């Protein structure tokens, strides 16, 4: 690390590579975007602006994904170049694992629920 705050590329040789990181404007931009991306979903749900619940659900999930990306870029300083790409590699691997685990769990358990024999039929089989 170095003491120069203006030159974001000065410590390019270090663990945080040439990505423009830790600048005041970067943090503020991330913060303002996060506030907006948080406020809108809360407002949508609390005011019930959108006509259907499905649309509201999809919109707030989209906002969440965008805000996660904003946090990754402006707060966690992710870039394809950090750690020679190994950070991004680990992140992509994790995302693949998370998507498989989440979608798989929801899919399988949903089918299990709908294929489960209802309780009243089960009692009638005695």
């Amino acid at each position: 690390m170095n003491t120069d705050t203006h030159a974001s590329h000065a410590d390019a040789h270090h663990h945080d590579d040439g990505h423009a990181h830790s600048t005041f404007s970067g943090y503020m931009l991330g913060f303002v975007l996060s506030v907006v991306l948080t406020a809108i979903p809360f407002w949508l749900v609390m005011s019930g602006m959108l006509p259907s619940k499905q649309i509201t659900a999809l919109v707030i999930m989209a906002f969440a994904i965008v805000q996660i990306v904003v946090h990754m870029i402006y707060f966690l300083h992710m870039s394809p170049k950090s750690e020679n790409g190994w950070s991004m590699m680990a992140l992509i691997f994790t995302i693949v694992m998370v998507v498989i685990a989440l979608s798989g769990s929801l899919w399988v358990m949903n089918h299990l629920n709908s294929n489960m024999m209802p309780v009243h039929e089960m009692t009638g089989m005695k």
Partner: protein
Amino acid sequence: MTVAVNPSQTGEPVFYLADEHPHPEGYSTSLGFWIYLMSDCLIFAMLFAAFGVLGANYAAGPAPKDLFDLDLVAVNTSMLLLSSITYGFAMLTMQQNKIAQTQMWLLITGLFGAAFIGIELTEFAHMIHEGATPQRSAFLSAFFTLVGTHGLHVSCGLIWLVTLMVQVWRFGLIEANRRRLMCLSMFWHFLDVVWIGVFTFVYLLGVLR
């Protein structure tokens, strides 16, 4: 370690150095810590999956609509978001070698984090008082496990933060302390990322259901 290759014509074995060149201390810390965060991410993914499967099983008990106060969740979310930006300021002042200001921003971050935990514990106490305990329904078990695990992480982050403030106070902004502060920065921002998932999928979608 040295490895012998084909002996030369004279019969003398030729050696070469197979070791990697040495790296300075802490060279791979941030990548290693990032991989730890990714494994933590998998823990939260499993808890989200459990909540996704069980989140509608109320067992005739209270539903999210009856329990959650979105105003309080919004306040809590802003506490965590503010603590994220103040930690960012701590990192900026750290790069300028301003110890006093770094400590001040770390303290403010800690206070926002403590406010978050305080509000969350108040919410939990209120729910438990109303009979919405983790034993009440599968939904509440999954809720308390997921949100409680996140709260536990934030609490550990607070302990870590206080420890680092003592470290910086005693030894100053030495290289090791800078590295530690950077790791906590990643940890703290990562917890804010997880909270985005919590307030969206648990609170907002729960109230919507």
